[in-house]
């Protein structure tokens, strides 16, 4: 899952980026409000971690601007402002979660997963398409009850496809969701990962819609 991190403190930002990466997130880090707004409006992030005391543009202003432009990306506000009125204002302006610093990395990860899950109308942590089961928190995948070992990219790709089950995802959409900045993306990288997934799981696990993209069906039955 690709996350935007907006934090101006170099040590905290660096720590959060590294920590969230360890937890399997793709993290893009911006250090000011203007950049945060620009990135969130232009790219497809699964969620955002937003500090409020950002240079150039305050976090709450960024949030307000995003929501005004109907950008529904789940936003977790991570701030030192712990007063109740601040929290209320943050949530009312469109924050999906409000966390006061300092925060435990694992908790932050869980909250982000929860935000993404809710954004996709998911009730539980576990995603299911037919007999394929994916647990984002444990980063485990199983087919017909048997664990399947996947690489990080393969897992992330499967995760995105299952999150958007029954919807066709274009290659560009998948790339946007999978690769943070600075990642060298081969033009056929997605096809390669799809190929691997089909090999490791089942040839029919991912459907190709020619000229459009890929999809997984929630009710698929694999022979």
């Amino acid at each position, binding site marked *: 899952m690709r996350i935007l991190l907006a934090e101006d403190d170099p*040590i*905290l930002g660096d720590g959060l980026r590294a920590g969230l990466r*360890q937890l399997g997130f793709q993290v893009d880090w911006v250090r000011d409000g203007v950049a945060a707004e620009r990135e969130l409006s232009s790219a497809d992030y699964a969620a955002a971690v937003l500090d409020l005391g950002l240079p150039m543009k305050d976090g709450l202003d960024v949030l307000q601007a995003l929501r005004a432009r109907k950008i529904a990306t789940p936003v977790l506000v991570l701030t030192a402002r712990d007063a109740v009125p601040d929290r209320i204002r943050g949530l009312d302006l469109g924050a999906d979660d409000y966390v006061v610093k300092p*925060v435990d*990395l694992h908790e932050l990860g869980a909250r982000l997963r929860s935000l993404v899950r809710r954004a996709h109308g998911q009730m539980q942590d576990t995603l299911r398409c037919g007999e394929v089961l994916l647990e984002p928190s444990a980063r485990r995948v199983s087919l017909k009850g048997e664990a399947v070992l996947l690489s990080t990219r393969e897992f992330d790709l499967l995760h995105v496809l299952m999150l958007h089950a029954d919807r066709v995802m274009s290659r560009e959409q998948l790339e946007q969701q999978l690769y943070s900045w600075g990642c060298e993306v081969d033009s056929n990288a997605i096809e390669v990962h799809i190929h691997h997934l089909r090999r490791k799981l089942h040839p029919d696990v991912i459907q190709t819609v020619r000229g459009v993209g890929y999809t997984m069906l929630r009710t698929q039955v694999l022979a």
Partner: protein
Amino acid sequence: MTQVQPGQAPLKSLQTRLLVLLLGLVTLVWLAAAVLTWFNARHELDELLDGHLAQAAALLVAQQNTVEDEGMIDAPSLHKYAPRVVFQVFHEDKLVMRSANAELQAMSSTTRGFSTVRLHHDKWRVFATQGAQNDVQVFVGEKIASRSAILWAVMQSVLLPLLINLPLLALAGWWAVRQGLAPLRKLSLQLSQRQPQALEPVVLTAMPSEMRPMVDSLNGLFERIEVMVASERRFTADAAHELRTPIAGIRAQVQVALGAGTDDAQRQHALQATLAGCDRATRLVEQLLTLARLETAPTASAPTSATALDLSAVARRVAADLAPMALTRHQTLTLDAPAPCTIVGNDLLIGVLVRNLIDNAIHYSPEGACIQVNVALDATHVVLQVQDSGPGMTEPEMARLGERFFRVLGHAHPGSGLGWSIVKRIAAVSGAQVQVSRSELLGGLAVSVRWPGQGSA
């Protein structure tokens, strides 16, 4: 609420004091009146009764002139008071008439006028007179005790009401004093029932004018304490708030290090970052403490350790300290302090002020910028000016500068926003004025600090 300090005379209650004073004074006045009455009454009584004695003596003399010698007559005692009065009439040294209780010898050796004699066990007031031919000698005496009895009776009528009234007066006085002190008691009750945190002003309905200054100064004190407590609370809240970010950074980095697994480079990086985070938190705490110490320092009086010092020398020292940092940012740091400029201040604090100004200029100006530090003497002031070619500030930003934790947006440098508060505070403590403007010379920010001049040394 009564507190007795050891080694100090216990303070009686105001009520007791007033009551004792009141009753004491009343008794004193009354007693003075009684003494006056005593002397007055005795004098009047003596005059009256002496008059009577003289009158009686005159009568006896006159009678003796008309009555022929018929031997000695013992006048009968006709009234129960008669034994208190005595008379003797001598004719040619022969006792011719006497009262029943009179002796045979002359009562007094004085032959004319008043005298006081002692007969048997009583003192007598005796009036002696003689007839025209000096053949008749009359003595009329009266027991002094009977006079005293009258006097006592008079005095009793004066003192008795006092004795009866004094307890009544004490009671009335107690009640009156108590009524009079009611507002004071009300105030003390209100104060004693106060929560320790309650700092709202004391409001008394129908407050006596004598209490107004006390209550007013009390309320003034409450107000000052409230301001102090509020600033203290805000400071604590701000500090706690401001420390969250470095702590969050340290926490995140430690968790990254813990989760690095076999990635040694990542662990190393995270641990280094943790260390940097600790340093930053430490610096922040130091700044907070400096500020806290400065805030409690009295503004009016200069710090105790203030001495005459050369601002140029301080600026040179600080600039030398900070020059390496400017160099790593490819900035040009220039100091122009040709002559020694003496100001009065605390060497350490002035150093902190200069350091903060130059440090800010370095950090908030981009790489390759110019920073110019001037120390100069104008007609009346010693002026320290720090200018830079950085982005400067807008008017509203300049106005908000020095608010605790206020940071100008748009800077990559993570400051705590405390530096300015410290600069402002030190300037206030050492009697200097701070001015922020756009630098004419370099286009960035220009900060001037002006001390009242001591002349060049």
